[in-house]
Each structure stands twice: as C-alpha cells, then as structure tokens.
C-alpha cells in the first residue's frame, strides 16, 4: 500500500506532502487545488508514464511549478547561475519485509523508508551545451528540458523497472474517453492486465490466425486473382488485398469489446466509464493494487452513480482507491472520514470526525457537505425563509449576493447544526456562522449550547435576542414598523398580532417578498451580525 507522497515542483505543487489512507482517499478541493494533478502524480511515480507515454518523452517546461520556473528564468536573466529546477515525485510504501530492497534515504524527506521516485533533473552529460545556452541569458525563457533526463528510482537510488514496482495502478479517467478505433489505451491496459499472460498470448495468436485465414478465404483468393490482373498504370507490382500483419497492427487496434453485442464505442459514455471502473476493481492481483479514479460522477445519472459507488465500497477491499470528485453524494456515501481536502501544500483529513456524525452524513447522503468543506465562509441557517432573508440582508449591505463573494448560505434541516459544526471545527481555515432562532430561550443559553464549538475560533453563532421574539418573523416585526411590512408583503393587517400570524402561516411567501421588495427593510441585529 502507498503510505505517503511528497511532490516537488510538479505543476500546481511546489512542495506537497500527503499521508494516504490504506483503503480509500476521496480527494476534494477547489478547481486548481490539484486533485487531478495528484492522481496524475501517483500514476506517474508508479508507472513512469503519463497518459500512457513515457515521462521522459512527455517532459515539457510547462510541467514545472510556474513560480519555480519563473524564478529560475529571472535568476538566469539577472546573470546568476542557479541550478536547473528538478521535478521529483516520491511515493512511500508501507513497511513490509518484501520491500527490503526499496529502503534508503534517497527521498525528499531523507527518511529511511521503502519507496520509489521519479526525478526529472539536469543531465550532466549536457553540461557544455547547457553552459553555452545560459551564456545568452536573454534567450532563456523556459526551463530547458531538452538538457534533462528522467530517472525512475527506488529510495536506495537504484534504477527500477515496471516489474520491480511492488504496486500496480489503474487510472480511470471517465471524462477523457478517447476512442478512435478499437480499444483505447485505458481499456486495453485494463483488459490486458485482467488477463493472465497465457490468455494474452492466446488472444494475440487467435487474432493472427484470423488475419491469416482471411487471405485463404475462397472469395478473397478470387478477388486477389482479379486484382492481380488489374491495369498496371501506376506500378508494375501486383496489387492484392490483405490484412495488415505487421507488429503494430495488434489486436488492440482492431478487436472491440461488446456490451450486449453493441460495440463499446456505441455504448453510452456513462456505461463505458462504469465498465472501466468495474474492470479495474475486479482485477485480482497479488501485488498491492492502486486504483485512481477521476470524477466518477461524470456521464453518470444519479441512480447509476449510486450503483457504482456501492460497487466501489464493496469491491475495493484489499485495494487502495483514490477518487477525485466534485460530488457530495460520492463523498457522503463513501464516508466523510475518508475525505482529503487538498490545497497546494498538502491535504487535510476529516478522519477524526465523531462516529455518529459520519453515520449521519452517510445515511443522509443528499446533504451538500462539499459546500461546507469548500466554502471559505459559510452561513448555516435553519430553513428556506432564513436563507432568503439573509441573502437580502447581505445584498443590502454589500451590494451583491453572498455567493458572489464566495460565502455560501447553507440551509440545514432541523437540529443538525452540530453535525455540520463537527465538520467545521476540523476545517480551521473555513469560517462558519450559525444563524438560529432562540425558540423562547435566552440568547445566552442558546449560545452556551454551542460553547464547545465556539472555543475553536472559526465558528460563530448568531442568536435572535429576546425570549418573546422566538423566530425570524417576530424579530423582523421588532425592527420594522407595521406599515413598512404591510407594504413589503403586499398585505394590510391592522394589528401586529394579525400580521405576525399571517407571517408565521406563510413563512416562505413572506421571505420571498422580503427578498424581492424594492423597499428598504431593517434587519434584526443577529442577522446583521451574521453578514458583517
């Protein structure tokens, strides 16, 4: 199993470190936080390949962290001679006796552990050429990767081969299905690795004899006889038809998997990605097997996603799975405690979440937990009417809706604030505000119920003051005169009591009217606090 990754100078990661869960890692983060890059980096270290091609062939100046590249170029142009930057990806394995040969301290952390690494660094064989190149600093605009070499090593700093890596990887990127003819490389890789060597040889042999039989077919013999006599305008050579028997035309290019007799490329994209994921999950391997899944929710309807997620959670026993996702459903179903919230320096886990809170989210998997996880600031409210009034209050104060400033107003059912706050207190960089009614109690007492969360510093609680103003509606009535509210709501009640009864009976309608009203409205103090 993979225990840890350390990345240096690769794409978004200047320096990145993350410990892995032995079973499941659900990678979540903003766009650009590096979800896909992390998946790519794991695959790269395990296979020395990127998108099916050797890293050495794919290496380009744009794979370097952009600040690192810019600093290097700036230093060269300033007449200094900085060392050319190196891309390094170190993968640490769990300590196991069979891995004794992979031990060493040749990793970025310099700890004695078993592991493998890819390193793209300057090739000293090109020293003269490189010195000539940097002698004209103004020409240096990019990292000169043409003077680089890629080494695939273990932590003892000895070269490794695909055979000596003790883990295999299947990368499943459902969004990136490239089917020209036959089987794309993902699928061919998955199929080949699913077959044992004998079966693979049989497949190649059967395919070759198929090609040979083609030429012996009576009608083909006849056709070729005819073609042989064709007018020789262009060439003196004989023209015949046959199937390409050269090495490059192997079965992968011409044999197509069928689902219920439908060629694979005519099957829906959703089915295609499901099939690929399942093939990878069903694989039986002795080595540790790593499955990297990019956004399984792509191309899948909700029920199909549900089926797939169930398969992932039952079939991944004994395999290590990495999933990058934007879907709260996937996250809740597979377990919030497996979440890794990514940033460009590292990841953050929710694995210390209380057990009952994990179960709560797993059962109510429709909850948009990802919104809470991803929003820098969120405001938790008790119902749709509170949500609308808060939006209006924010618009009045800041001139735009909260979401435009990256503030997410999340409507939390019933009394599940505490479940969300269990998550929130682990996410130190996120600020969470709870907006709640006093329900006939002292505001101080209500706040006291949250004291354990308030102690964390990133949680605040705003409670309506005054026992007699139990909910949002009386609070609104408290700070606005009856004429204004009558106008805003398009009604004309004579007494505050009547108006209040109407408001309580028509909560959502009233909140919508408040949200849409062109008239100025005063907001209760606790709402003001929440949006400050």
């Amino acid at each position, binding site marked *: 199993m993979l225990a840890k990754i350390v990345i240096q100078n690769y794409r978004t990661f200047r320096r990145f470190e993350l410990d892995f869960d032995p079973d499941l890692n659900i990678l979540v983060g903003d766009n650009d936080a590096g979800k896909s890059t992390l998946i790519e980096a794991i695959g790269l270290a395990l296979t020395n390949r990127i998108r099916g091609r050797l890293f050495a062939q794919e290496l380009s100046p744009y794979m370097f962290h952009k600040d690192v590249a810019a600093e290097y170029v700036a230093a060269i142009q300033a007449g200094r001679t900085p060392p050319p930057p190196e891309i390094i990806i170190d993968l640490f394995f769990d300590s196991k*006796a069979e891995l*004794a*040969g992979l*031990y*060493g*301290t*040749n*990793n*970025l952390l*310099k700890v*004695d552990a078993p592991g493998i*690494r890819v*390193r793209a660094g300057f090739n*000293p*064989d090109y*020293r003269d050429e490189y010195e000539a190149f940097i002698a004209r600093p103004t020409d240096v605009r990019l990292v000169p990767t043409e003077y680089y070499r890629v*080494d695939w*090593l273990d*932590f*003892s*700093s*000895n070269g490794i081969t695909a055979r000596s890596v003790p883990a295999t990887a299947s990368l499943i990127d459902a969004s990136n299905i490239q089917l020209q003819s036959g089987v794309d490389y993902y699928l061919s890789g998955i199929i080949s690795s699913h077959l044992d060597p004998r079966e693979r040889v049989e497949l190649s042999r059967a395919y070759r004899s198929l090609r040979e039989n083609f030429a012996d077919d009576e009608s083909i013999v006849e056709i070729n006889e005819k073609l042989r006599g064709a007018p020789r305008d262009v060439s003196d050579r004989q023209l015949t038809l046959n199937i390409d028997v050269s090495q490059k035309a192997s079965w992968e290019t011409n044999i197509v998997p069928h689902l219920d007799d439908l060629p694979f490329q005519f099957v829906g994209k959703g089915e295609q990605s499901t099939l690929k994921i399942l093939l990878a999950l069903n694989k039986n391997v002795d080595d540790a097997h790593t499955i990297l899944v990019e956004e399984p929710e792509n191309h899948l309807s909700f029920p199909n996603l549900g089926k797939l997620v169930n398969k992932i959670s039952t079939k991944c026993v004994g395999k290590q799975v990495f999933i990058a996702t934007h879907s709260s459903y996937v996250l809740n179903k597979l377990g919030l405690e497996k979440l890794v919230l990514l940033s460009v320096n590292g990841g953050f886990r929710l694995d210390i979440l209380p057990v009952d809170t994990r179960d709560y989210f797993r059962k109510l998997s429709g909850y948009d937990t990802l919104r809470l996880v991803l929003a820098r600031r969120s405001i938790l409210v008790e119902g749709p009417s509170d949500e609308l009034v808060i939006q209006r209050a924010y618009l009045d104060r800041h001139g735009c809706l909260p979401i435009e400033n990256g503030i997410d107003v999340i409507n939390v059912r019933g009394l599940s604030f505490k479940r969300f706050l269990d998550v929130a207190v682990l996410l130190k960089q996120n600020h969470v505000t709870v907006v709640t009614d006093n329900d006939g109690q002292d505001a101080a007492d209500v706040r006291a119920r949250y004291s354990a969360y308030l102690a964390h510093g990133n949680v605040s609680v705003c409670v309506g003051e005054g026992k007699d103003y139990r909910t949002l509606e009386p609070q609104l009535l408290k700070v606005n005169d009856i004429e204004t509210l009558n106008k805003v709501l398009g009604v004309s009640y004579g007494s505050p009591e009547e108006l209040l009864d109407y408001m309580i009976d028509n909560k959502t309608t009233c909140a919508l009217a408040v949200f849409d009203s062109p008239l100025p409205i005063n907001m209760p103090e606790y709402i003001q606090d929440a949006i400050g």
Partner: protein
Amino acid sequence: MPSADNLAVISAAGSRKTQYIVDRVLASSSRRVLVTTYTNENLRQITERLSIGSGVLPAQVTVMGWFKFLMSQCARPYQSYVLGEAGVIRGLNFIGSKPQYAAKKNPRRYYLDSHDAVYRDAVSAIAVEANRLSQGKVIRRLSRIYDHIYIDEVQDMAGYDLDLLDALLDSPVGITMVGDPRQATYVTNNARKNTNFKGNRISSWLQQRRDRCFIQERTESYRCNQAICDFADGLYPELPRTTSMNNETTGHDGVFDIRPEQVRSYVEQYSPIILRHQKTSDTQGLAAMNIGVSKGSTFDRVLIFPTKPMIHYYHNRDPEKAGDLAKLYVAVTRAKYSATFVIP
C-alpha cells in the same frame, strides 16, 4: 550479533572453492542469498554453474559483481549521510582515482568526480562511512534483504572493503568468504587504508577475526599434480603445504623448461595454453592469455613466457626474488599435468 554461520575458507589453487560456493548455495534453496566476487570471469562462471548452464538463477539467489554490490546496495541507499544530499551519486568512475589532497570536509569533492561519479577507490569508503554515520543503516538494510552473503576471491579485498566485511561479520547475515591468499592478483582499491592486509596478508586479517568467523583450510588440489603443487607451494613457505588429489599420469607431468626455438614443436606436440605476463610480452606471435585473466580456469597444460624474476625463481626457488608471487602462482597452478617455462 555475529551470525553463527560466518565462515572463511582459505584454499589452495584447484581446491574447487568456487564449486564449494555453488554447492552450498544450491543446498540452501530457502534462504535469500547473494554471491559476489570481483572478476567478471569468475562472476560468469558462478552464474553459469548456479543456473546449470541455463543463465536463469534460482529464485532467492542473486549474483552481483563486487562493485555493483558496493554501489547499489551499500553506497547509494544511505549516501545522504555522507554527501549531505540524497540521490547525488550518478555513476562509477572506474578509471580515475580520488584526488590525494582533497579535504574530507567537502565530501562531494572528496568522493565524487566533477560528473558526480564515485571514484572506484571511494565506493567502499562511502559505504563504510554511510554505515557509521547512520548508526548501522547500511548493514541493517542488507540484513533485511539477504540471509547469507558469499564472497568469492576474498583475497582481492582491500582498504575499506575489509572494514565493510568487518561490519558484515558482526551482523545477523551469514558471511562465507572464500579465497586463496596466494592468488591476490587484483586489488579492488588502492586506498591507503588497511595496506597491511593487502594480498596474501588476508590470512592474517582473517586469523585476527577467528572469534567471529570459523576458519577452514582446504589444502587439497583436485587440479594440479603433486610436482606442480610443490613448485607453487615453494612461493609461500609460511602457508600450509598442498596435497594433490590428481594422480593421473600422462607421460609428461610436472614442471619443465624449454628454449625459445623449441616452442613451435612443443606447442605442436602438447597443445598447451600459452600464458604471458602482459599483453606486450613476446610470445612468438602465438595466441596467448594474460595470467591475470586465466585466474579461475583449469587447463591440461600451460606454456609460460616468464618474466626475469620468474626465471630466477625457476632456477633458485627463492621466493624473495620471484617478483610478483601471485602471478607466478596463478600461472603454474592453471595446469593439471604440466607447466612449462620458455627460458632463453
């Protein structure tokens, strides 16, 4: 804790010491074993015999040249303890040698050339230093990988190699060292460390470690007849006598001399393998083999084009004036039946 399996076999030429290693390795199939030796020729022979000619070694058995072993399993894994940085060593510089006056406080300049390749005489030094500075990580790593390490031609070890062997003798890995102190024709490095123990001094180095390592002497030669054994033993009067187990007679057995003008007819009659001191030696245009390269080989007959000191020994049997004892010893002990010198 030293392994109870530590063993040093001091043996005479033709005592089947390489076969001894091969037999022991094949007999202990369940253990993870490394076999290492210095010369490529010996490495090839061991691989061939262990794989019974197929080139495919039994699982669990690794055969590796001494320098590859030093580089990949000893110097590289914990180089950061010596060189400060991880992954610095790029390769091996087999030709150059360590700058004599470089300061040890700049280890990168001290051990590595300008292309970050390790000087050949610095590889075992890095290994030993890395082990010392990491509190034994190099040896600990080896003991996780191997149950037993066999070292053939141990007489070729010198300098820091011996310090590494010393550390291995203290480890849980079983160590079997096999060598003939009389055949020290190569030395793995020219470092000034442990110069007392170069070449035939290996036996005293081993004797000093007999508390951690059982010493066995193999004095039977299955190759050379008694006359050849006696001639060769005379070079090392302080070492035990060799007993020949080869009693075959062919009508031309023992040590002889011929004059240069007799070479053609002698070669025609006996078809000996022709041995020379070095490439530039004059062998009358006949195809010949360097003595150093012939080590480990068995021939029916050899014809030797000797150096001046060798001729002196032939006439006077005085080892003090025999020049390179090991070369002469190796040359005569290649032969089963006859070793003949061309003497002007």
